């Protein structure tokens, strides 16, 4: 079983990459290949040109800037997971990455690849949406930033243009000591989740919630923020949260159905998992004294 024939290109610089994308038709970018290669081996897709970006060093790496933490699109999942910056400033991302594939796939797979492929059950796009991350994109018209709210266009469909490539993701960390929670259900550790939930919380010194992000993933075709439920948490005390409306919000989503899982079961899981994520976020929220 192998991919259909294609022309292989290996640019060494971003300029070469940009030129190739402008010139070539039916081209695909090969990052870590952990989703693209199976699709090519199974001949779900057959690009005429494969542009391998593994040898462009500027596309990988994690740096803190005034605008936030920028993670290069080609940064391998294993490097994001072991990054001290990520573990201390974006603990939710590290927590989620433990559920992304296995050591063999994290050694190759990249955060940018996952966020361009956009499997509805993928953890990294879900975390990006919870953080309102910014997607830094380059193309024929230069560089521009796409907010997470505009990045997800649908099932496996991002806002990236055909001649564009994702350069990096930018995360704005939440306050030190913020609460974070992550829960998913998968049939085998590391498999794509059937469904999952994410919660981020900030509180004041009395323990009242001042900021919240709640998200369900693997339920609809894209990760879904539960904005109304987020608003309802504000002002509540962390020790006495009314979790039921949050669970109900996740349970009311339009869930997908497939050969393995009914929509009803997915909705049930969405409720259970957002509840667990929120409880974990309450437990990890540090009290400021």
């Amino acid at each position, binding site marked *: 079983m192998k991919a259909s024939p294609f022309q*292989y290109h290996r640019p060494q610089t971003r300029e070469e990459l940009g030129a190739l994308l402008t010139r070539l038709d039916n081209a695909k970018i090969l990052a870590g*290949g952990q989703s693209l*290669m*199976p699709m090519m*081996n199974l001949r779900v897709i057959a690009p005429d040109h494969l542009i391998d970006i593994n040898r462009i060093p500027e596309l990988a790496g994690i740096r803190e800037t005034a605008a936030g933490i920028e993670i290069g699109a080609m940064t391998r999942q294993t490097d994001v997971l072991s990054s001290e910056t990520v573990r201390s400033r974006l603990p939710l991302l590290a927590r989620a990455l433990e559920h992304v594939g*296995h050591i*063999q796939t994290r050694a*190759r797979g990249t955060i940018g690849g996952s966020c361009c492929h956009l499997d509805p059950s993928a953890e990294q796009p879900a975390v990006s949406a919870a953080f309102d991350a910014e997607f830094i994109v380059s193309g024929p018209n230069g560089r521009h930033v796409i907010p997470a709210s505009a990045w997800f266009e649908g099932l496996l469909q991002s806002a990236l243009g055909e001649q564009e490539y994702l350069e990096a993701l930018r995360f704005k960390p939440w306050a030190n000591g913020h609460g974070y929670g992550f829960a998913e259900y998968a049939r085998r550790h590391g498999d794509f989740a059937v469904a999952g939930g994410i919660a981020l919380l900030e509180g004041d010194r009395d323990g009242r919630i001042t900021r919240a992000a709640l998200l369900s993933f693997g339920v609809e075709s894209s990760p879904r923020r539960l904005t109304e439920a987020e608003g309802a948490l504000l002002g509540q005390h962390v020790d006495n949260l009314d979790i039921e409306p949050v669970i109900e919000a996740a349970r009311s989503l339009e869930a997908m159905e497939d050969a393995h899982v009914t929509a009803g079961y997915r909705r049930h899981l969405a409720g259970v998992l957002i509840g667990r994520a929120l409880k974990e976020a309450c437990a990890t929220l540090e009290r400021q004294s």
Partner: protein
Amino acid sequence: MTERSVSFTLNGEQREAKVDPRTHLGDFLRHSLGLTGTHLGCEHGVCGACTVIVDGAPVRSCLMLAVQIEGSVVETVEGLGNPDSLSTLQQAFVTNHGLQCGFCTPGMLMTLEAYLRSTPMPTERDVRIAISGNICRCTGYEGIVQAALDVAATRADRT
């Protein structure tokens, strides 16, 4: 399609070869180089049988193109030991009945070889998570996990 030449280190030996860009690393090792120790199961990244070590990291050789190993250091099960002189990990698999049909074994060995280099003192749970991307349909994993723990314990005694 145009063949490309690749030069790389394989089990300590410098090699050069010509490859069709669409050939994945697993097929290249087996068909072009005759190294049939690497097994191909699902060829879409689920079973882990084809795991080899590239530049120190365990990777699925069915999800990497042979043309991508240019300049890299590749290790396969043939580099671990041989029938007359098994590696410590291979011997631990034998001792603990960590294999039956042997199909998943090369992938299990290469995954654990890479893992134990970076995590010399794993817990049982760590080992189970480390091999969660490798499917074995014979052993129930108990012998494999025990083999890895034995190797870790032996190495800990020595240091």
